C-alpha cells in the first residue's frame, strides 16, 4: 500500500520529513563502550504502515526497537538520528529522539510510540491487577474506559480487570499488555516478538488481533519477529537485519517471492512448510558474526555461497533494487527453489507389527487434581518416526517424561522391546532448551564420555567420534558449553543421546528456541542419523511445519488425550478433528519462491 515511500534513501539533511513518514531513523548505531552492536541502521515507518523487522537471533532487532523508544539497557549508547514526525493536526518540525532528554521522551512514550515486548510473563507488574495497568496508563479523562479498552483486545469478561497477571494465561496477559501499550493511543506501536512465547494457535490469534487493531486505528506498527512467515503475512514492508545492520528491505510480497540478498534467500530456504515435505532442509552454514568483527566487509560474506572477492574489501552500501527495494548485496541473487519430496511410499506409515518397540496402554498422570494425561495409548515400531503435537499444556512433555522414567505415571502400562534391557539403553532424549541441556560445568568431551560409558560394553564410542557423527569437529570435546552456540549445544545433546545407541530417541521440541536456519540443520541431522542408525524417533512439537518434515506418522494430543492420529501428510492435509483443523489453519503459509525472474537487476 505504501510501497512507494522513499524508504531507506540516504539521510535527509533537511529538517522536514517527507509527507506520510512517521518515523525516520538514519544511521542508527548502538554501541557498548565503543564496540558497535547495531551499526548504521536506516528505518522508515510511514503513518499507518506495518513494517516487519526480521533476522536471526542477535542481529540487533530488539536493540534497534529499544533505541527508538529511548529505552536502551544501561551501558548501551545510541548514535545517529531518530526523528518522529510532528503530531498529526499540529504541523511542525519533526522531533529528534536520539539524545533527547528523558522529559521529552516520557511525553512521547506511550502517547506517540508504544512498545510491546516479547515475554508476556515478565512484562506485567506482578503486584498490579490487569485493570490497574490499564488505568495508570490511560490519560486522565479516559480513566474509566478500562472495560472498553479490554474489549478492544478481545477480553469481554469484566472480571479480568480485577485479576493479577499470575491469574491469567499467557495469551490473556499479552492481550492485557497490548491494551496497556495502546492505552495512550500511540501512532506507532513497536511490537518486539509479541507472540514468541505463546502457543501456535494463540500466536495466530494475537497476530490477527494486532492486525485488526492496526487497521481499525490506522496505527503504524513496527513488528519485530524472527518468523519470516509471520512477517510476510502481516507486513506491508519487511526489513532484514543481520549482524547489526540492514541487508535488505522491500515490500513483503516482493521479498517473499524474490529475495535480492543471499541471506534472505537462505532464510526462506530454511523455512519448513506445513504444506509439503522438503527432500532436504537447508540451513545457512555458520553463525551470525558480531557487528564489530565484520565492520569493513559484507557482514554475510563468511556464510555466503555466492561470495566473491569484492564482498570482503568494503562494506556494500544499500543499493536500490527495484521499486521501493534496497539490498546490501553487490551481486545478483541466484534463487534455488526447494524441491518437494514426492508423497511416496518412503514416508508412508509402517504396518503395525506384532512386536512394537514401544507400547503404551492407558497411560495416566495426575498432578493433584490436575489431569495431565488421561489415558494415552501409543505404539512405536522400530525405526519409526512419530510426531506428537498438541497445544501447550496438552501433556506432551509429561508423556515423554513418563517414557523416560523421569516421572512416575499414575496408571497405565509402558512396555519396551526387548524386555529386560535397562531403560537408558532403549530410550534417550533431546530436551527443548539447549541452554540448559548441557552441564555448564563439564567440558563437552566429559559429558559425552560419561554418556558413552553408559552404553553396552561393545558399543562405547569416543567423544570425538560422537561429535563427528553430529557434524561437529572433534576438537570441540575440550570446550565448555558456554562457548557453543545454541545449535551446536543441541548437536552435542543429540550426540549424548546417541552415545548409548538407544532404540528410541525422544526429541522434546528440540528446535523450538532455535533460529530457522539452525533448526533446518538440526532437523536434517535428526533425519539422517535416525535413518543411518535405524533409531526410532518420538518427535514432540507444536510446530506443524516441523512435524511435516521429519515424521512418518503423527499423534495429536489435547487435554491429555489422543484426539487424532495417522500418517503425517494425511492428517495435515485433511485434518479430521476440529482442534487439528484449527492448528493447521494457524500456520502462516510458507513463501513460495517464484524463481529467477523475481530477482530484479
Amino acid at each position, binding site marked *: 500500500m505504501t510501497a512507494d515511500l522513499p524508504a531507506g534513501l540516504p539521510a535527509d539533511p533537511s529538517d522536514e520529513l517527507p509527507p506520510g513518514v512517521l518515523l525516520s531513523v538514519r544511521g542508527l548505531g548502538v554501541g557498548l563502550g565503543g564496540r558497535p552492536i547495531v551499526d548504521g541502521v536506516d528505518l522508515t515507518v510511514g503513518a499507518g504502515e506495518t513494517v516487519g523487522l526480521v533476522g536471526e537471533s542477535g542481529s540487533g532487532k530488539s536493540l534497534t526497537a529499544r533505541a527508538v*523508544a529511548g*529505552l536502551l539497557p544501561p551501558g548501551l549508547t545510541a548514535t545517529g538520528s531518530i526523528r518522529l514526525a510532528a503530531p498529526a493536526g499540529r504541523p511542525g518540525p519533526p522531533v529528534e529522539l536520539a539524545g533527547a532528554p528523558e522529559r521529552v521522551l516520557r*511525553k512521547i512514550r506511550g502517547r506517540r510510540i*508504544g512498545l510491546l515486548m516479547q515475554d508476556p510473563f515478565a512484562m506485567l507488574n506482578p503486584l498490579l491487577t490487569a485493570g490497574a495497568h490499564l488505568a495508570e496508563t490511560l490519560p486522565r479523562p479516559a480513566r474509566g474506559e478500562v472495560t472498553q479498552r479490554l474489549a478492544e483486545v478481545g477480553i469481554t469478561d469484566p472480571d479480568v480487570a480485577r485479576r493479577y497477571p499470575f491469574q491469567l494465561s499467557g495469551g490473556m496477559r499479552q492481550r492485557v499488555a497490548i491494551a496497556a501499550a495502546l492505552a495512550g493511543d500511540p501512532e506507532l506501536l513497536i511490537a518486539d516478538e509479541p507472540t514468541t512465547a505463546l502457543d501456535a494457535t494463540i500466536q495466530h490469534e494475537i497476530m490477527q488481533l494486532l492486525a485488526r487493531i492496526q487497521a481499525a486505528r490506522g496505527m503504524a506498527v513496527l513488528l519485530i519477529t524472527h518468523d519470516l512467515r509471520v512477517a510476510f503475512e502481516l507486513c506491508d514492508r519487511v526489513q532484514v537485519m543481520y549482524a547489526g545492520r540492514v541487508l535488505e528491505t522491500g515490500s513483503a510480497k516482493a521479498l517473499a517471492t524474490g529475495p535480492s540478498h543471499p541471506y534472505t534467500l537462505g532464510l526462506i530456504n530454511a523455512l519448513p512448510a506445513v504444506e509439503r515435505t522438503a527432500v532436504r532442509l537447508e540451513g545457512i552454514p555458520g553463525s551470525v558474526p558480531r557487528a564489530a568483527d565484520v565492520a569493513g566487509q559484507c557482514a554475510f560474506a563468511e556464510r555466503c555461497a555466492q561470495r566473491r572477492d569484492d564482498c570482503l574489501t568494503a562494506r556494500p552500501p544499500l543499493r536500490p533494487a527495484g521499486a521501493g527495494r534496497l539490498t546490501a548485496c553487490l551481486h545478483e541473487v541466484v534463487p534455488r527453489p526447494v524441491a518437494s519430496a514426492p508423497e511416496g511410499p518412503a514416508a508412508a506409515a509402517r504396518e503395525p507389527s506384532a512386536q512394537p518397540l514401544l507400547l503404551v496402554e492407558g497411560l495416566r498422570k495426575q498432578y493433584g487434581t490436575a489431569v495431565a494425561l488421561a489415558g494415552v495409548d501409543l505404539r512405536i515400531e522400530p525405526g519409526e518416526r512419530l510426531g506428537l503435537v498438541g497445544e501447550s499444556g496438552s501433556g506432551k512433555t509429561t508423556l515423554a517424561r513418563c517414557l523416560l522414567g523421569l516421572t512416575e505415571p499414575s496408571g497405565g502400562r509402558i512396555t519396551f522391546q526387548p524386555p529386560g534391557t535397562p531403560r537408558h539403553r532403549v530410550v534417550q532424549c533431546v530436551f527443548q532448551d539447549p541452554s540448559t541441556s548441557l552441564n555448564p560445568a563439564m567440558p563437552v568431551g566429559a559429558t559425552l564420555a560419561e554418556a558413552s560409558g553408559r552404553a553396552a560394553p561393545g558399543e562405547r564410542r569416543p567423544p570425538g567420534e560422537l561429535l563427528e557423527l553430529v557434524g561437529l569437529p572433534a576438537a570441540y570435546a575440550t570446550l565448555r558449553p558456554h562457548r557453543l552456540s545454541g545449535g551446536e549445544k543441541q548437536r552435542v545433546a543429540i550426540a549424548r543421546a546417541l552415545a548409548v545407541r538407544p532404540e528410541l530417541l525422544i526429541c522434546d521440541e528440540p528446535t523450538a528456541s532455535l533460529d530457522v536456519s539452525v533448526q533446518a540443520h538440526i532437523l536434517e541431522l535428526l533425519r539422517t542419523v535416525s535413518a543411518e542408525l535405524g533409531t526410532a524417533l518420538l518427535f514432540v512439537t507444536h510446530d506443524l511445519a516441523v512435524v511435516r518434515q521429519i515424521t512418518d506418522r503423527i499423534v495429536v494430543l489435547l487435554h491429555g488425550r489422543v484426539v487424532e492420529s495417522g500418517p503425517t501428510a494425511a492428517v495435515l492435509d485433511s485434518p479430521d478433528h476440529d482442534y487439528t483443523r484449527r492448528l493447521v489453519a494457524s500456520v502462516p503459509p510458507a513463501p513460495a519462491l517464484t524463481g529467477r525472474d523475481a530477482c530484479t537487476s
Partner: protein
Amino acid sequence: MVFARVATRRLGAVVVLLLVLSVLTYGLLALAPGGPEQALLGERASTPETRAAIRLQYHLDEPFPVRYWYWLSGALGGDFGNSVYFRQPVLSVIGERLPVTTTLAGFAIVLTLAVGIPAGLAAGLRRGSAIDRGVTFGTLVSLAFPPFGIALILLYTFGVALRWLPIYGSDQVANYVLPAIALALGQAAVVVRQTRAAALDVGGQDYVTFARARGLSRLRVWGSYSLRNAALPVMTVAGLLAAANLTGAVFVEQAFSLPGLGSLLVQAVNQKDIPLVQALVLLGGAVVIAVNLLVDLLYMVIDPRVRHGAAA
C-alpha cells in the same frame, strides 16, 4: 480472613516450637555445672541448713523432668516463676526492661530502614556509579567492623569529645540516639546490600521497561514498580533484624549500659538464673515467630501471589 487463617495455622507450630525450645533451654541450664545456689547465697560462706532449704525450695534435688514439669505447669498458668537474682516475678523483671529494648529496637530499625533503603536504591539504580561504589564500600566496612567497636567510638566522639549526647541513662529519648546509631550502622549495611540487589534485579525486569515505555511518570515507576517489588526481599531482612533487636541487642546494650533484655540475658546466664533465662529465651522465640508472621502477613498485603497462594 485469609490472614486470620494463616495466623491460626501458625499457632500450632508456635506452641510446638516454644515447647521444644523450653525443654532444650531448661535441660541445658539444669544440666550445666553451677546453679542458682551460688546466686542465692551470694559470694559468702553459708550454713548447710540454708543450702538444704534452698535445694528444697528450688527443687534442685529432684530429677530433671519433675523440675521441668514444675516450671511448665507454672508457665502454663502464666506464672514463669521468680528471678533468682532479682527476687521478683520474672515477668516483672522483664517487663521493666522491655521498654528499653523496644525503644532501642524501634529507633534502630527506623534508622536502619531510613538510611538503608534509600542508599540501597541509589546504589542499585545507578550501578557502577560513584554513589554505588561509595555505598558498597561503606557497607563492607560497617559490616566488617566489630559492633562493640562502633559503640565505643560513638561513645567517645559524641558523648565525651563533643558532648552532644548523654553517655548513660535510659529514660530520655536522647539516651537512645547513640545506641540506635551503633546498632543501625551494621544493620543498615545488611539492608543496603539487600535493597541494592533487589533494585538491580527489579531494574532489569521487563515490567519496569514496559512501564517506562508507556510513559508512566518517574514517581510511579519508582513507587509502584521498583520500590514495591524491591520491598519484598527487603522486608524479610528487616523482619529478621527487628527480631534480633527485640530479643536484645547485647553488645550495644552492654556498651551503653542500657538496662535492656540483652544485658539482662548476659547477667542471667552468668547468675544461672534459670527462670529468667528460660523466659528470655522463650520471649525471644516468640518475638522471632511473631515478627516472621508479621512479615508474612505484610507479604500477603503487598504480593497478591502470596495472598492467593495462601487462599488456595
